[in-house]
């Protein structure tokens, strides 16, 4: 296991792009928290504090559909990754607002629960661990298919306590059948209200990969540069060697677990503030330009909320849609259950 201290050179244009996406994601999340408080959405759960890791991850995904591209098995703190891949504020806000126009779930799931076939973002469940079981399946197909597409699975430190995480390590390292999967644990040091260090005795979660013979790394996920470098290294390894890599990123959790715990701002290091200081110190942008960026995305978020208010909610009869793949089969669900 390596502790990373890398600080790669990132082009100023890329740094500005990363900053823009970090701010965009934060504005989205903060606006959705407000929607919850305003009664426009029942539940919020998201990723404020994970932008320095999630944006570099999303920007390095090989985006597309099918086994030639990366498959993404995500958990509910993945908004930075999706925004970096090109996700829109409006789509997330539609899901938060439970609108029929919600392209991810048609008003059926919590916000930040994506399903995007054209980007291999597979349906997300609110479970914290099952994605670690499903990821080896797409990776198995990719191993057989060839090419450099990989499977990426992320989850939190709390989810790593479930047996499914151990299953992922085992299925990814069967002798001679090692799988091209990047296994990510985003360690925010809490499971809802329970501190990580009161429940986990292992030195690092990533150390568990060592027993399975996979390279591992623990990084400061609040640092854009360190995150970028570690993700780049891990992806390169998985793409070329067709074997797994376990990456543990330590991050802040700036608004608690979810709206169930109030979603109030918590005093932990803010990766955006840290990054902005670096941008200003290095002369890449000015405080004024940063302020304009925040205003732009706050305005965009507000406009999206207004837009979704004009859109319809699902209808009661919609519950019967998509019970089965074929429309002709959907009548089946209704018979006997209506």
């Amino acid at each position, binding site marked *: 296991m390596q502790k990373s201290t890398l600080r790669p050179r990132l082009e100023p244009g890329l740094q500005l792009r990363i900053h823009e996406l970090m701010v965009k994601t934060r504005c989205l999340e903060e606006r959705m928290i407000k929607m919850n408080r305003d009664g426009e959405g029942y539940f919020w759960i998201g990723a404020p504090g994970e932008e320095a890791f999630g944006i570099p991850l999303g920007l390095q995904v090989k985006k597309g559909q099918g086994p030639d591209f990366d498959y993404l098995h995500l958990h509910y703190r993945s908004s930075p990754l999706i925004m970096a891949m090109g996700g829109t504020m409006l789509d997330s806000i539609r899901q938060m607002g439970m609108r029929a126009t919600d392209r991810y779930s048609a008003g059926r799931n919590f916000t930040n629960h994506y399903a995007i*076939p054209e980007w291999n973002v597979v349906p997300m469940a609110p479970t914290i661990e099952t994605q670690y079981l499903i990821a080896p399946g797409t990776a198995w197909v990719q191993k057989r298919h060839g090419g450099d597409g990989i499977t990426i699975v992320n989850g939190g430190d709390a989810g790593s306590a479930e047996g499914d995480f151990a299953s992922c390590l085992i299925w990814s390292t069967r002798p001679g059948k090692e799988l091209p999967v990047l296994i990510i644990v985003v360690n925010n040091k809490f499971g809802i209200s329970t501190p990580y260090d009161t429940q986990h005795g292992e030195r690092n979660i990533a150390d568990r990969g060592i027993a399975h013979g996979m390279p591992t790394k623990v990084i400061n996920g609040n640092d854009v540069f360190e995150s970028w470098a570690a993700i780049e290294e891990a992806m390169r390894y998985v793409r070329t060697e067709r074997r797994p890599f376990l990456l543990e990123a330590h991050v802040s959790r700036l608004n608690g677990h979810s709206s169930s715990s109030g979603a109030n701002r918590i005093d932990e290091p803010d990766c955006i503030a840290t990054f902005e200081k670096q941008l200003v110190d290095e002369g890449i942008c000015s405080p004024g330009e940063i302020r304009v960026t925040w205003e732009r995305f706050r305005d965009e978020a507000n406009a999206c909320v207004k837009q979704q208010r004009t859109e319809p909610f699902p209808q009661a009869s919609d519950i019967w849609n998509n019970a089965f793949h074929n429309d002709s089969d959907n009548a089946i669900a209704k018979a006997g259950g209506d």
Partner: protein
Amino acid sequence: MANMAQAIRMALAYGEQHLGVTDVFGEDVGPPLGGVFTATQGLKTAWNTPLDERGIIGLAYGIALAGGKPVAEIQFCDYIFNTIDLLKLVGNAHWGSAGTFHLPLVVMTPVGAGIHGSIYHSHSFESMMTHIPGWKVVMPSTPIDAYGLMISALKDTNPVMFMKPKALLRTKGEERIPGEPEDEKTLKEMIDAPLGDRSNWKPRWPNLTDFSVPIGKAKTVLEGSHVTCVTYGRHVHWAKAAADKLAAEGISVELIDLRTLYPYDFEAIKASIRKTRRVVFLNEDTAVSNFGEHLLRRTTEELFYELDAPPRLLCGKNVPGVGLAPVLEDASVPQIADIERMLRETASVPA
């Protein structure tokens, strides 16, 4: 005639050759064993997994997401209970993603008592499984239906749970599977792995055909006029044995083999009950929240005024397990004498 395990094996071989099956996998499913009931012997895509049922279902989900056509086996349904949440996720993936993803996968698992499997190899699973929406659920009672239902399951674009009545897996059928050689010994030589070293053995599959049993269609095994018996799996044979005895008493039983538990063929059930005006639902799962209770509910709601006798359910006793001693197993699941008694009682209620 082929037995049910051979029939399933041949259907999977047909699936590999013609229906895009990419992976048949599970515990001891690949060589050398080919499944504890030999239902996967000789298949070219069969492989062994860790003893991790959650991993098996998760892998099937992932393979289906990436465009494969997986057939996963859980060695006994008793081991599937720790995957319930995953079965639920499979069932709601299409619905929860607003119809943007679907999962064409098959899970197969042996169910029920009948092999003296004691507490942890005798469970039934249909009541639990039919309670998980988004799946189709089938259970054959004959080798030819096993073949045809598996072909249909492999063609379906939804998740399908294929339940294998374990007590019937070595039972031969009365109808030849299309393409099956006439001589049983020849079939065995062609597709059964030899004892001893199997490392160089390869099966010679018969010229198999696309014979499907449609999902959702029941079969009338016996036509009768006094009482309807609706069942599936191994109890089809026991109900037939009971019906044969009752025929000598002048009681005529109409026997329906449901074959598909979801979506079940309620039109066939209704038509039969309208004819006989009496019905017994029969299965071996435990009593409380039994799948048959759902059929009873619909029968009561939709056919109440057409019944001449209370509709009945004969099922397994509501106890935590099926005991090993024969007397315990027999007392836990309906026996031929129990079926005979309940059919006679139901047929005898004055109109």
